[in-house]
């Protein structure tokens, strides 16, 4: 009897386990895509365990956003179809919310791409879990480069104000679920390079915002600082990581470090994937490092490598590292069982 039960349990586990293992792997195959250019950028939504791939497009029939979850569900968004009259959409940032929404910071161009000037609309869009457009907020004069959402649907956005005439202004805005401004903080006056800290192109990497355990974290790559806010927008801490990053330069014998990705765990420990620049003609290397909350280098999680290294995307809600792996030229995957 016992043997039969064991056999039954083994059969059942064989039936269930492949599904479970498959469910922990998110595969994005872009080979069937009819629009090959441009390629997709990828973000990790730790709240809902989803991969969000996005790209700019000028063709309404081309998907701009693909949302793939660990549960196997797959939603494709065609935002340009929702805005008849727009010639193209550029996507600057995406994020997922705990309610399953996808929030997109986008600009819509009403005219040919190569013509100047043309009307541009800077928008925050919210799509529900079924891929239906639910909210459109015109956030002009802001252009948001980074977005995050909390569990009740408030949206935090880090962006620059077009046409700002020299005076200081807030870079971080908190919007209510209905699109009202609930708070503004992180003044440009805090930075010597003003609003350039949120704009792409810093040699130190890109800025980033994310929510972890009821805290809003803002990584300013240009100054190598991490700002921690309460979800009410109160600044709790401002920590510099420049000494830890300098330590990485020294340990690797490199010339400088660019932060490719940053993740913060539940104990405020920081994980950085970094690009270690070497003296030419040596190739740059990639490494994964852990840094303590007080800004000291702790250890290398992965030693430096100059090969085709997997990309670190961030952490899961329970602090597992999430990596994007190349499966083939057109296919990438996230294996959530991998630590």
């Amino acid at each position: 009897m016992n043997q039969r039960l064991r056999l039954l349990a083994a059969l059942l586990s064989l039936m269930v386990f492949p599904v479970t293992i498959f469910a922990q792997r998110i595969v994005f195959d872009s080979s069937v895509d009819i629009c090959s250019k441009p390629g997709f950028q990828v973000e990790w939504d730790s709240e809902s365990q989803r991969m969000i791939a996005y790209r700019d497009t000028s063709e309404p029939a081309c998907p701009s956003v693909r949302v793939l979850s660990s549960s196997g569900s797959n939603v494709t968004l065609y935002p340009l179809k929702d805005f008849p009259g727009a010639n193209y959409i550029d996507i600057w940032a995406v994020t997922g919310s705990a309610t399953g929404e996808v929030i997109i910071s986008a600009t819509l161009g009403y005219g040919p791409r190569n013509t100047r000037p043309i009307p541009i609309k800077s928008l925050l869009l919210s799509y529900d879990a079924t891929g239906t457009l639910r909210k459109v907020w015109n956030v002009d004069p802001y252009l948001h480069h980074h977005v995050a959402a909390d569990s009740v649907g408030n949206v935090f956005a880090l962006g620059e104000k077009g046409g700002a005439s020299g005076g200081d202004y807030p870079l971080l805005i908190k919007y209510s679920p209905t699109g009202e401004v609930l708070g503004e903080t992180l003044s440009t006056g805090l930075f010597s390079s003003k609003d350039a800290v949120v704009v792409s192109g810093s040699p130190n990497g890109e800025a980033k915002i994310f929510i972890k355990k009821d805290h809003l974290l803002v990584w300013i790559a240009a100054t190598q600082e991490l700002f921690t806010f309460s979800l009410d927008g109160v600044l709790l801490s401002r920590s510099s990581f420049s000494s830890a990053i300098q330590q990485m330069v020294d340990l690797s014998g490199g010339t400088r470090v660019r932060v490719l990705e940053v993740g913060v765990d539940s104990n405020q420990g920081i994980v950085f994937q970094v690009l270690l620049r070497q003296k030419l003609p040596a190739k740059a290397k990639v490494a994964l490092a852990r840094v303590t909350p007080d800004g000291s280098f702790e250890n290398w999680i992965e030693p430096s490598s100059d090969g085709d290294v997997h990309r670190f995307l961030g952490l899961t809600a329970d602090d597992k590292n999430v990596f994007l792996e190349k499966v083939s030229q057109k296919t990438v995957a996230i294996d959530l069982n991998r630590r």
Partner: protein
Amino acid sequence: MQTKRILLPTIAVLLFFVIWHGASGFMVAKAVAAPNASMKSIAAAMLHPPYQMATPHRTLLSGMRFALIPSVSACGTGNPQCTGETAKPTCQGCSPGYCYCPGCQTSGCTPYACTYVGGNRFCVYRNVSSLDCQQHGDCNCISCEEDYNSSCTSGTCPPGPPCQ
């Protein structure tokens, strides 16, 4: 007489709020609609909104001012002209999420493109040869980070002036 004295201002105030509310709704729908959308389609979107709309940084008055006098680009001192562009990471011919150059490897660098968004912005393609150049932030678009720029130079814009 007394009733009239109370009723008339009350109606006037109510009417004012109804008009204000209607005008605000119209301006929000107009801000979300295509620039050349007809009054009729804007009014239809206002009455039967297909999605929730908002203009968080505009009031009715600033919305009206914007509708009447669109903002103009005016460069600050030091920039020769406004291109209305800003730097944006791009992804050409790489596996999803591996938008680096050359060779789409994580150990490569991030290619950027000058992207038109309007406003008081300045951005030109250039080959970057010094760290100081890059630290100008939005003043330059970078086709690729230093060290590897020769393999990733792209775009149709001519190179910008040398860094000062």
